[in-house]
């Protein structure tokens, strides 16, 4: 991964800018979508989406409820078939990688955590090692160390032995994030990573995954609902307007009051605080 890691400041490439030789693009981009069309239940989520996400980059997906953010994320993860177009993960199609090969390159944080059976927190986190173990392997001490480090990273070191059924919603969410850290993919696809988290943990988790992107050469795709956190913690933003209409661009420019007001169907205004912008919804008085 060393030589191919692009600097954190490198940017998404768009289809109209990709006249460079196919080879260089192939080796630098972690996730590439060519002319991607995704739909669910006859409703178009995106059409003609072209993106190339490089190591170190963070993409935020924003849109209203039910617009298809989760469907798009699952498609990017190779778990759902796109209507049209092609996806490449580290230069390979999902079919060529196979489920196991894909699992070593990309990880997905599901929106819901279902625990039909009881298990300890540590066992649940160790599940993330699955793609790295061969069929008859058991988790080694090194794997357990990784799991404990991940639990410490999300602030749950003390709960390793607890039953998963006794956790609060926010704690359960952090266990799921720790499972993903233990999976150690290069591309993180996070479906509402901040759900159930209180404010300090929202910031801590975004910092944690941003550090993985900055220092570990990982790439992030996040479905977020907080526009201010999206503006602060993403390099690029993909706005899903519904009916297949989308906008993709630098977070700096793609996120503005007019665009966000249109996106959510609710007026927002900007408050400036030095360099930083804060989007605030207008509220009835």
């Amino acid at each position, binding site marked *: 991964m060393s030589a191919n890691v692009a600097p954190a400041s490198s940017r998404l490439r768009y289809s109209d800018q990709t006249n460079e030789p196919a080879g260089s693009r192939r080796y630098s981009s972690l996730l590439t979508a060519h002319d991607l069309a995704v739909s669910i239940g006859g409703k178009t989520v995106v059409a003609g989406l072209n993106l190339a996400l490089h190591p170190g980059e963070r993409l935020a997906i924003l849109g209203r409820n039910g617009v298809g953010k989760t469907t798009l994320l699952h498609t990017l993860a190779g778990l759902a078939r796109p209507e049209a177009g092609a996806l490449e993960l580290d230069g390979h199609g999902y079919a060529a990688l196979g489920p196991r090969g894909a*699992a070593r390159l990309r990880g997905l944080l*599901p929106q819901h955590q279902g625990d039909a059976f009881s298990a300890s927190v540590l066992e649940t986190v160790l599940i993330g090692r699955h793609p790295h173990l061969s069929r008859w392997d058991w988790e080694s001490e090194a794997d357990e160390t990784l799991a404990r480090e991940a639990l410490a990273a999300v602030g749950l070191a003390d709960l390793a032995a607890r039953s998963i059924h*006794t956790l609060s919603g926010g704690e359960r969410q952090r266990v799921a994030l720790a499972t993903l850290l233990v999976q150690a993919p290069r591309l993180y696809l996070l479906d509402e990573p901040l759900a159930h988290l209180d404010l300090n943990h929202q910031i801590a988790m975004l910092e944690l995954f941003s550090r993985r992107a900055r220092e570990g050469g990982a790439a992030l795709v996040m479905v977020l609902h907080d526009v201010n956190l999206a503006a602060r913690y993403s390099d690029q933003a993909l706005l899903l307007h519904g009916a297949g209409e989308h906008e993709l661009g630098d977070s700096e420019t793609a996120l503005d009051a007019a665009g966000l007001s249109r996106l959510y169907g609710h007026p927002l205004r900007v408050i400036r605080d030095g360099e930083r912008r804060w989007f605030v919804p207008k509220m009835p008085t």
Partner: protein
Amino acid sequence: MNRSRALLILGLLAVAAALSLLLALAAGSVALRPGEVWLALTGRGEGMAIEVVRGLRLPRALAAFACGGLLALAGALMQVLLRNPLADPYVLGISGGAAVGALAAMMLGVSANFGLEAAAFTGALAAMWLVFGLARGDGSWTQTRLLLTGVIVAAGCGAAVALMLSLAPEDRLRGMLFWLMGDAAQAGDPLPALLTLAAGLAAALYFARELNLLARGPLLAATLGANVARLRLLLYFLASLLTAAAVTTVGSVGFIGLVVPHLVRLALGNDQRLLLPAAALAGGALLTLADTLARSVIAPQQLPVGVLTALIGVPVFLFLLARAPRMDQA
């Protein structure tokens, strides 16, 4: 949990299973000491002991062991497939289909062991394909749909069984009732069931870590590299075949398939790599013990073993539910 600890636990369970078999060979109207059982097994004892142990008790004990193991393993697999700790091997109508097949054969006057087994197995396979075909429907394959289809097919089989019982001639009724309650006395050659158990356990263990993933949800399993659609198909057919083999051999013995995986899960946790073989051993040992009790409690009268497992299973299950209310809520 690591491999050496799992192997230690399985070793202990294997010893317990061997002891249950020894007890089954020793207990009965002709009581034998362990030494005598050993002599008889190796063919060096007195003639009658050899006849009793090798001719009568061993096939029956092995059949009970194999079927207990099959049912417990099938139950554990069904619980992962349906992601419901209260699922049992019969929930999808396999035993109902087998019962319809076996009772129909009995009504028609088939009494040979082989004929009955063939009829029961055919019935189980028919129910399995019916549920599979209907639940597949338009290609979707959801837990709810599978469960509902199975429950409805089981209800239909129940009605067919009741109809046959009410129409059956008096002299065949008792045999039919015993078959329905589960009875190891009617078991023939235990070898097919034992081989099915060994093959089924090997197949399940091959996928055990993927089953751990599936137990935590199909989406998570898919992101971590399991081929979920293939895995669920395999689970369905494996659990169904194991159930069919057990029901064919000893009839529909209840509660082993529900209670044993549950007990093992409470005691050892939910790692399928340990849970599956442990459930198979514990299920085998439990049914062997229950069958020994069934034929010796009010000897020479014999009880159907299924009644006994239910009589033991119900209070044990209720006790566990009351004791650990938060452990296994679906």
